[in-house]
């Protein structure tokens, strides 16, 4: 299955729940709704044509006004790759855990919980992960984060 066939297949399967984004990259990039996340992941994993068996990464982006959570998935068996993301509000962001679909999601979700302060529902092990054990300064990857010994790069003119 090449890129165009993959896009067509996904669009036929999920209709308007999925929106193709124009990124100019080799892998297709889709936008979905946060409520649809778990259902979507389960369907692409269980679909025999897609057989998405590998979650490469979960990343979060803070744009200053909203959060975007990006999932990179792949199928080792079918040699496929694509990405999808969804958009969250800045106030009280919450997502569902996909660790029952891909167990490897556990650490990725723990990381974005810790660094971005995005809450994960149904996660079995949300505790301190990459930051120092006595960390008490909040979520450092947020755009508006600050700390007493944190220095921003001065503007270069």
């Amino acid at each position, binding site marked *: 299955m090449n890129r165009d066939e993959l896009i067509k297949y996904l669009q036929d399967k999920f209709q308007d729940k999925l929106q193709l984004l124009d990124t100019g990259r080799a892998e297709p990039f889709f936008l979905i709704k946060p409520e649809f996340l778990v259902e979507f992941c389960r369907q692409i994993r269980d679909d025999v044509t897609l057989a998405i068996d590998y979650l490469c990464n979960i990343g979060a982006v803070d744009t200053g006004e909203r959060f975007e959570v990006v999932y990179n998935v792949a199928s080792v068996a079918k040699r496929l790759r694509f990405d999808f993301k969804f958009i969250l509000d800045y106030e009280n962001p919450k997502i569902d855990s996909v660790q029952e679909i891909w167990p490897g999601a556990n650490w990725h979700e723990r990381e974005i919980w810790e660094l971005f302060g995005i809450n994960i529902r149904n996660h079995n092990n949300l505790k301190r992960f*990459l*930051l*120092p*054990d006595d960390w008490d*300064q909040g979520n*450092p990857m947020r755009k508006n*984060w600050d*700390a007493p*010994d*944190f*220095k*921003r*790069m*001065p503007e270069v003119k």
Partner: protein
Amino acid sequence: MGLIKKLPVYLEKFPGGGLVTTSLNYVFSQSQASSLWYLLFGTACCAIELMATGASRYDFDRLGMIFRASPRQSDLIIAAGTITKKMTPRLRLLYDQMAEPRYVIAMGGCTVGGGPFYYDSYAVEKGIDHIVPVDVYIPGCPPRPESLLEGCLTLQKKVKKLKMEDWS
């Protein structure tokens, strides 16, 4: 170390005791300076340069510097690489486990003062002198093996000047 520190005080009361202490001091400091065994403590890219210095081209061994994998057997920490805030308690622990006299070389911009992570970093400790006392600073990103050798020679000079009484 207690007994050896007090030795000069007692010896100097005897006639010719001063000569004995000076000679003893000379022997001790010479042997210490020529066998500064360092702890394997490479935490980032500077460690590559440390390895290059240890390998045959620059040959650390000719200064009597041999790496040890245990803090109990080493006299020197060459902190080669970025020290993150999460790493700081470990560094302090390793330093505390070393037997006195002990020395620290801060190798590379990261350990001297944060280096390339000085701005925009929430994770990096900006200078290891916040955690352990540092004897020699070697700036550079990374310092070339020549600078590291120079730093070690500087440390040797310092060790040779030390008196038994001020070992710590």
